[in-house]
C-alpha cells in the first residue's frame, strides 16, 4: 500500500470555492447530454418489452414489422453471439431476453426505424408467444423450498447445503470467539430487518447514439459513468476489437452507480450494424424503472450483545440480498461493512444472494452498505435505549480507530470516525430541545472507497495555460477539483487550467467513475502529471541557464536556481518557459498512469430530528446534520453537495422509496409519481460539518466523499422514528401506513 503520499503543506487554491467550468452550459442548455447527440441519417430505436415477470418465449414473429418501409433493422437475442464470459453474458442477457423473460419489462425485440412514431407502430406489429411461468420477486419467496428456479445452473459453489438453486453467491467475514463474546453481554438483542429495492433516481434517462461503419469501425456517444468499460463490454458483446470502437461520454444527469453498466448501448450498436445507419436509442422513465438496475432489497438478521456500561461484546449478522434475475456480488460489501464502524473482538457476518424475477441490480452509492449498517445501527440504538445510555457515547466507546482490526479483515490506518463522533457531540444540534412527537436519531456510516486504473495527461500550452485531459465523466464536480489540483501543484491561477473528459481513444484506460474514486485517483494522477511537467520545465530552464537540471527547483509557478551555487538567474515563470518551449525542445506535457491504491476509507455520522404525526404516521424531517471525514476537501461546495445529496437520497430510501410489485410479479410504480423520491419541500436545509483527517495515500490527503453519506440516513431516521413512537421499526421504507400501523399496534 502506498501510504506515504501525503505531505503536509499550505494550500493556496485547495479548499477555496472556484466556479465550475460546466455551470453556465448546464443552466443555459448548451451542455450536451446523452439524448442531445444526433447524426445525419439517424434512425430511432424502440424496444418491445415483456409484460410478464417470468415466461418462456415460445416464438417471435417480426415479419409484419419488418414489412414496414420505415423499419430498417430488427434485433433479438439471436443476433448476439452466445457463450461470452459469465459477467458479460449476464449484461447482454439483462438487456434482451434469451429464450426466457426474467423480469417485467425485459427487452425482447428492438426496432430501428426512420422516426420514433414509426418505431412505436412497428412494435405493435410484433407477435410474441409467451408461456408464463411461476415467478418469485421477493427474497423469502425465491428462497422457499419449491421456488421457481430463475436461471438454472447458476447456484454458487460456495453456497452451503440447505439453500436452493436460486442462491448464487455466499460470503463470510469476521474474527474472534462469538460464543465467548455473547457470554460477556448483559443483554443480547436479535432482530430482523427489511429494506426495499430503491432506484438511483437519476434525472437523465439512459440515451445513446451508435454508429457502426461498413469498415467495422464504430462510434458510440452515450450517457455513462465510464466510457472505457462501455467500450470493453460493447466490443466483447458485438465481437470487435476495442480500438475499433470509440466511446465518448456525454454530460451526465446523475448516475449514483446506476450508469456503471450498459442497458441500451449494445442494442443500439447492433441495430446500427444491421441497418448501416446511426441509431439513437433513449429510454423513457417507465423503461428506466423497469429495465435498468435498482439496488438490492434485503432481509438482515442481526444479533448484538452489550454490557450495561455500553461495550459491545459480540455481533453477528446474516444478510439475504436479491439483485434481480442474475448472480450479484453486492452481498460482499454488505457483509464487509455491516460492523465496520466498531472495534469488536468477536464479529461474524454471513451473506447469501438469491435470484428473483426482478431487473439486474446496478450499483447504487455505497452498494450493499446502507442496508447492512441500517440493521446493525438499529440494534445498537435499541441496546442503548435498553440500558438508558447515550447513543453517541456508546459509539465513542466502541468506535473503530487507527490500529483496529476491522470486521472485514484489514487493520485501519488513520481514520476519522472518532473525530466525526466528537464533532457531532460538540455540535449544538445534539443537545437542542425537542418538542412533542419529536425524536432524534443518529447513525454512523462507512464506505471503503476505491482507487483503480487511472490515466491523466497535462499539457502546458505555448501561451502558458494548462490543458488537463482525464477519462472519467464529471458526475460530481470533478473537472473543477482536478483543475484546482493542477493549478495548486503548478503554482498557476485556477482560471489558467481547463480540464476536459476525453473519449476512449484519446487517453489510456480509466476505470469507471465509481467507488468515490475520481477526486482521489484522478487527482493523484493529475498532481503527478503536473510534477512530471514541472520536472520537464525545470530541465528547460536548466538548458536556458546552462546549469545542471538538478540545480533547478520549482516554487510558486517559477523555475528558480536551487541556491547560490547554481548561479544568479532570474526565476522563469511557467508562462515564459511555455513561450520558449518551441526553442528548448518542443511542447511540454506531463502524464501519469497508475492503478491507484491507498484510497482511504471514509466515515460519517448523521444526526436527524423529526416529528411524526401520531394520527397519520406522516414524518417531517425537522433538522439534519452530516458529519463526515473528507480527508481534504478540495472544493468544499462539492464535498458539502455530496454529503447533502447522500442524505437526501437516504431520507427518501428511509421514508417512501420502494419498488412495489403486484401479485402478478409486475412493477406497479414505474414513475416518479408513485416511486417517491423526496421533493425539495420534503427536506430541511441539510447542515454539513466537514472533518479533514488526511488520507496518507493521497498527496493532498483526499478521501472519496461520494458514497459514505448515503449510509447513515436509513438508521438515523429509523432510530429517530422508533424513539418518537416508542416502537422499534424494522422495515424500510417507513411509509405513513407502516408507521401508523406500528403506532396502533403499540397502543393496543
Amino acid at each position: 500500500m502506498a501510504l506515504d503520499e501525503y505531505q503536509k503543506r499550505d494550500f493556496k487554491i485547495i479548499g477555496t470555492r472556484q466556479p465550475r467550468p460546466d455551470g453556465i452550459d448546464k443552466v443555459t442548455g448548451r451542455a450536451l447530454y446523452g439524448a442531445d447527440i444526433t447524426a445525419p441519417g439517424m434512425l430511432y430505436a424502440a424496444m418491445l418489452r415483456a409484460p410478464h415477470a417470468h415466461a418462456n418465449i415460445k416464438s417471435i414473429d417480426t415479419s409484419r414489422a419488418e414489412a414496414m418501409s420505415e423499419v430498417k433493422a430488427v434485433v433479438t437475442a439471436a443476433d448476439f453471439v452466445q457463450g461470452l464470459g459469465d459477467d458479460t453474458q449476464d449484461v447482454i442477457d439483462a438487456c434482451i431476453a434469451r429464450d426466457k423473460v426474467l423480469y417485467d419489462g425485459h427487452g425482447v425485440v428492438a426496432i430501428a426505424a426512420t422516426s420514433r412514431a414509426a418505431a412505436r407502430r412497428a412494435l405493435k406489429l410484433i407477435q410474441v408467444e409467451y408461456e408464463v411461468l411461476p415467478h418469485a420477486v421477493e427474497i423469502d419467496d425465491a428462497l422457499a423450498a419449491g421456488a421457481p428456479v430463475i436461471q438454472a445452473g447458476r447456484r454458487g459453489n460456495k453456497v452451503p447445503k440447505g439453500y436452493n438453486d436460486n442462491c448464487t453467491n455466499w460470503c463470510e467475514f469476521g474474527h474472534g470467539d462469538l460464543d465467548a463474546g455473547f457470554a460477556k453481554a448483559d443483554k443480547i438483542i436479535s432482530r430482523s430487518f427489511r429494506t426495499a429495492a430503491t432506484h438511483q433516481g437519476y434525472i437523465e434517462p439512459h440515451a445513446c447514439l451508435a454508429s457502426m461503419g461498413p469498415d467495422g469501425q464504430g462510434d458510440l456517444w452515450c450517457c455513462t459513468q465510464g466510457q472505457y468499460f462501455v467500450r470493453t463490454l460493447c466490443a466483447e458483446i458485438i465481437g470487435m476489437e476495442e480500438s475499433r470502437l470509440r466511446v465518448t461520454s456525454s454530460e451526465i444527469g446523475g448516475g449514483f452507480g446506476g450508469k456503471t453498466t450498459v442497458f441500451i448501448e449494445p442494442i443500439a450498436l447492433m441495430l446500427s450494424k444491421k441497418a448501416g445507419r446511426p441509431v439513437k436509442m433513449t429510454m423513457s422513465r417507465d423503461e428506466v424503472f423497469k429495465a435498468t438496475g435498482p439496488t438490492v432489497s434485503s432481509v438482515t438478521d442481526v444479533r448484538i450483545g452489550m454490557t450495561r456500561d455500553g461495550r459491545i461484546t459480540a455481533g453477528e449478522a446474516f444478510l439475504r440480498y436479491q439483485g434481480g434475475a442474475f448472480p450479484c456480488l453486492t452481498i460482499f460489501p454488505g457483509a464487509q461493512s455491516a460492523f465496520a464502524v466498531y472495534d469488536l473482538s468477536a464479529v461474524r457476518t454471513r451473506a447469501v444472494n438469491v435470484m428473483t424475477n426482478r431487473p439486474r441490480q446496478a450499483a447504487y452509492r455505497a452498494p450493499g452498505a446502507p442496508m447492512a449498517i441500517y440493521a446493525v445501527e438499529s440494534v445498537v440504538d435499541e441496546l442503548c435505549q435498553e440500558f438508558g445510555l447515550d447513543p453517541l457515547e456508546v459509539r465513542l466507546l466502541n468506535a473503530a480507530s487507527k490500529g483496529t482490526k476491522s470486521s472485514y479483515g484489514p487493520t485501519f490506518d488513520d481514520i476519522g470516525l472518532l473525530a466525526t463522533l466528537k464533532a457531532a457531540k460538540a455540535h449544538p444540534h445534539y443537545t437542542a430541545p425537542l418538542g412533542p412527537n419529536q425524536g432524534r436519531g443518529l447513525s454512523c456510516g462507512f464506505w471503503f472507497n476505491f482507487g483503480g486504473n487511472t490515466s491523466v495527461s497535462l499539457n502546458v500550452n505555448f501561451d502558458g495555460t494548462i490543458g488537463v485531459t482525464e477519462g472519467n465523466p464529471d458526475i460530481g464536480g470533478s473537472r473543477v477539483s482536478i483543475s484546482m489540483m493542477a493549478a495548486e501543484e503548478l503554482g498557476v491561477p485556477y482560471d489558467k487550467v481547463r480540464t476536459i473528459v476525453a473519449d476512449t481513444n484519446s487517453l489510456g484506460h480509466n476505470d469507471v467513475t465509481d467507488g468515490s474514486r475520481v477526486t482521489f485517483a484522478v487527482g493523484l494522477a493529475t498532481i503527478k502529471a503536473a510534477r512530471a511537467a514541472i520536472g520537464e520545465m525545470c530541465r528547460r530552464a536548466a538548458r536556458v541557464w546552462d546549469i545542471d537540471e538538478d540545480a533547478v527547483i520549482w516554487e510558486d509557478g517559477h523555475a528558480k536556481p536551487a541556491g547560490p551555487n547554481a548561479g544568479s538567474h532570474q526565476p522563469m515563470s511557467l508562462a515564459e518557459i511555455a513561450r520558449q518551449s518551441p526553442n528548448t525542445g518542443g511542447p511540454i506535457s506531463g502524464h501519469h498512469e497508475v492503478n491507484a491504491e491507498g484510497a482511504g476509507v471514509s466515515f460519517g455520522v448523521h444526526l436527524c430530528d423529526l416529528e411524526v404525526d401520531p394520527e397519520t404516521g406522516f414524518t417531517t424531517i425537522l433538522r439534519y446534520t452530516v458529519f463526515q471525514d473528507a480527508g481534504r476537501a478540495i472544493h468544499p461546495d462539492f464535498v458539502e453537495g455530496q454529503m447533502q445529496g447522500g442524505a437526501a437520497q437516504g431520507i427518501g430510501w428511509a421514508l417512501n422509496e420502494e419498488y412495489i410489485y403486484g401479485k402478478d410479479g409486475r412493477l406497479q410504480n414505474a414513475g416518479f409519481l408513485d416511486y417517491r423520491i423526496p421533493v425539495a419541500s420534503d427536506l430541511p436545509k441539510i447542515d454539513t460539518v466537514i472533518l479533514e483527517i488526511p488520507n496518507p495515500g493521497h498527496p493532498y490527503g483526499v478521501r472519496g466523499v461520494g458514497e459514505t453519506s448515503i449510509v447513515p440516513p436509513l438508521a438515523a431516521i429509523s432510530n429517530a422514528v422508533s424513539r418518537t413512537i416508542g416502537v422499534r421499526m424494522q422495515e424500510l421504507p417507513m411509509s405513513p401506513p407502516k408507521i401508523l400501523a406500528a403506532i396502533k399496534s403499540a397502543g393496543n
Partner: protein
Amino acid sequence: MQYAAPTTTEEAARLLASNPKAARVLAGGTDLLVQIRAGMIAPDLLVDIKKINGIRDITAEGGGYRIGAAVSGAELGEHAGVVAMWPGVVEAVELIGSTQVQGRCTMAGNLCNASPAADSVPALVAADAVARIVGPRGERNVAVLDIPRGVGKTSLEAGEFITSIYLPKRPDRASDAYLRFIPRTEMDIAVCSAGVSLTLDSKGIITEARVALGAVAPTVLLVSEAAKALIGHKPDDATLAALGKACSDACKPIDDKRGTIEFRRDVVAVLAGRAARIACQRAGGSL
C-alpha cells in the same frame, strides 16, 4: 391527429359530436397531453376550448361566482373574491400538480378526468357546486356530485363538455376547507382527502354542513351522516369523533400501492376532523 380551436360553444359541441369516440377536449391539457405521450390514448381530434368567448373568465353571478372551464388554478388562486368566499375550493384546486402545472390545469379538467383522487372534486361537492354543460342538445346544469360515474367515467354524453362551474353564494359565518393526505409535501396524489363546507350561527354552532371524501371509493362520496354529526354542535372533540366515525364508516377504500384500507379509513376521519376545525375557524367560530 387534428387540432381545432373553436370560438363558440356551439362549434365546439358540433366538433366533439362529429367524432365522439376519438375527440378529446383540450383545456389545460395537464392530464390529456400526459395520457397521449404515455400512449394511453390516441385521439384523432383535439378540441381546444380556450378560445371560446368568456371561458377563461370568473364572473360574479347571483351572489356567487361562475368559473369558466378554462380558468387555470393559478388564475383562480389570484381571484380575491373567490378566495374569500370559497377558500377550501381554492386550496383544493391549488393542490393539483406543481407550480408549473398550476399555470395550465383547470377545475373542469380535474373533474372530467374522473380520478377518484382528484383534489378539487371533494371540495366542489362540499360546496354544492354546479357544472354547466353544453352539448348537441343545448345547455344543462348538473351538480358536480353527479358528474363522476366511476374511475375515468363521467355522466357527460357524447359531444358534451363543461363550460363553467358555479360556486353558489354563502351566508355570513360560512366557510370551507379541504385537506388531503400524501406521503410527501407536494407533487403527489391524494391517498385520501376530505372537503368540509359549513355554516355557523352566532354562537358558533354548526347549522349547515356538507362533507365530501376523496380517494376512498371509485367516486367522490358526499357523506350525509358526517354532516349530521356536525350539525347542531361546535367542533369539539366528541363532535369530531362522531364526524370521523361517520367518515370511516362511509368510505369504501381499497388496498393499493398508495395505501391500505385500514390506513385510508383512519386517516380520512382525521382529515375530515381537521378540515371541519379549519372551516369553523374561517367562518369566524372559536374552537
